[in-house]
């Protein structure tokens, strides 16, 4: 019963996602005139094998096996289903018999239709085969994967992003360090803070303190203040420095439905 339910839902999900990924990928070739969607690396990879159906297919296939292992092991597709497998296999289907990429890969309508079909097949296959794997086998994978993933999230990814920010120039390094540290304190992971730091640093490097970068900085600070408040960080901060919690702050938290422990 579960199997049919999974199959049915997977086909719908795959078709929806594939349709949008296909159209978005084709639209990327007309960016920035047309708003596309996908990723820079997807665009680069599509260009790298453009015109050759076999290259597109084998490129997708390599990531397909990886996604398969990942979904069987941990139930996660990897981002490659959307970034690599669907766009490249759609391109491979459209480009067969030596058609020109300009008429196929760059055409959102053709790519959307091919993407919807490929997406439905790929998602249904991945989900139904993963669901058919015995539970005990999945447990092994999870016992191996979860500790590895935890290590990746903390500290590997924060460190890599942080170093990238430091290498990217003075402003990125400075903002990355400030927001990275704040993010680790408030959210428990530095990555979002470092990412926003790079965003601001590079934005100012390339465009100066324009209206856009000012709005950006304000909204980032607002994001930190709000998430700090809702996670009770302000109260812990005051407590950490051995100070009393002011009555109005406790009241404010209470109003939001958060009881402050004295």
């Amino acid at each position, binding site marked *: 019963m579960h199997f049919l339910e999974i199959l049915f839902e997977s086909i719908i999900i795959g078709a929806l996602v594939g349709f949008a990924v296909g159209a978005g990928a084709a639209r990327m070739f007309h960016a920035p005139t047309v708003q596309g969607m996908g990723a820079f690396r997807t665009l680069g990879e599509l260009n790298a094998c453009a015109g050759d159906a076999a290259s597109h297919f084998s490129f997708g296939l390599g990531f397909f096996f990886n996604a398969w292992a990942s979904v069987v092991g941990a139930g996660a597709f990897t981002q490659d289903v959307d970034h690599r497998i669907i766009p490249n296999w759609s391109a491979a289907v459209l480009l067969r018999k030596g058609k020109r990429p300009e008429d196929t890969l760059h055409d959102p309508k053709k790519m959307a239709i091919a993407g919807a079909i490929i997406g439905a097949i790929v998602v249904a296959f991945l989900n139904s085969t993963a669901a058919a794997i015995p539970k005990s086998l999945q447990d*092994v994978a999870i016992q191996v994967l979860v500790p590895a993933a935890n290590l*990746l999230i903390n500290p590997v990814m924060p460190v890599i992003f942080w170093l990238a920010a430091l290498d990217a120039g003075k402003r990125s390094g400075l903002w990355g360090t400030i927001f990275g540290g704040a993010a680790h304190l408030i959210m428990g*992971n530095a990555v979002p803070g470092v990412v926003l730091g790079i965003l601001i640093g590079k934005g100012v490097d390339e465009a100066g303190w324009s209206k856009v970068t000012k709005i950006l900085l304000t909204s980032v600070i607002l994001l930190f203040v709000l998430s700090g408040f809702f996670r009770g960080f302000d109260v812990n901060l005051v407590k950490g420095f051995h100070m009393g919690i002011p009555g109005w702050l406790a009241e404010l938290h209470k109003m939001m439905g958060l009881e402050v422990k004295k």
Partner: protein
Amino acid sequence: MIDRQMVESPDQNQLNLKSFWYGDWAFPIFVAFISAGIFAGTHMYYTFHVGAFNDVAIVAMLAAGMKGGGYGAAAAFGASFLFARILEGSLVGILDIGGSIQTGIGIGIPALMLGAGITAPVQSFPLALITGALLGLITGYIIIGIRKFTVGQSDSTFGADIMMGAGNTSGRFLGPLIILSACTASIPVGVGSVIGAAIFYAWKKPIAGGAILGAMILGAFFPIPIPPIVK
């Protein structure tokens, strides 16, 4: 906006920039489609433990919340990615679906909802589709809105290349980390993951996949002793 660009780039005038396939107005519809699918993928992960559209490391954050560890990390991580990618996507003309939709709408927003005790949109398939589509529409309109106000005012890519470089580097860490944790789990599983990774490397495939498969195959014959549950 549209008119100006058509005048500026006459070579693109065979593209009908007001049509569904090329126009700005249709963009939110495409985002709604992909968001509906990806949000529903998260629903499948919540219900059947398969089908989340993201990397293991990021899905693990959501899984930590589902096992009672709190949704804070997933929510903060996903929401900030969504925010950053919306800004970047509208400025550069390419929305990164990995950060915005797969991580933001697929992981961050469900984590926010689950953290707040709202489970219905994640538990029900039709509700998941509708919720995802609505979130996608909103995201799409915000992007088109920002685009209208900012494109032409700024040439910056806001360090997108740096973040992508760092993202790809972190992905490479996963393979060796999986082997390390397999070797810690038990000797047979460790041996399996080493052999699997070596074979995948020889085949020029990412070694993470081989390490997982190798660990599973050996783990099937020599199960890992169940460790005491440490909370």
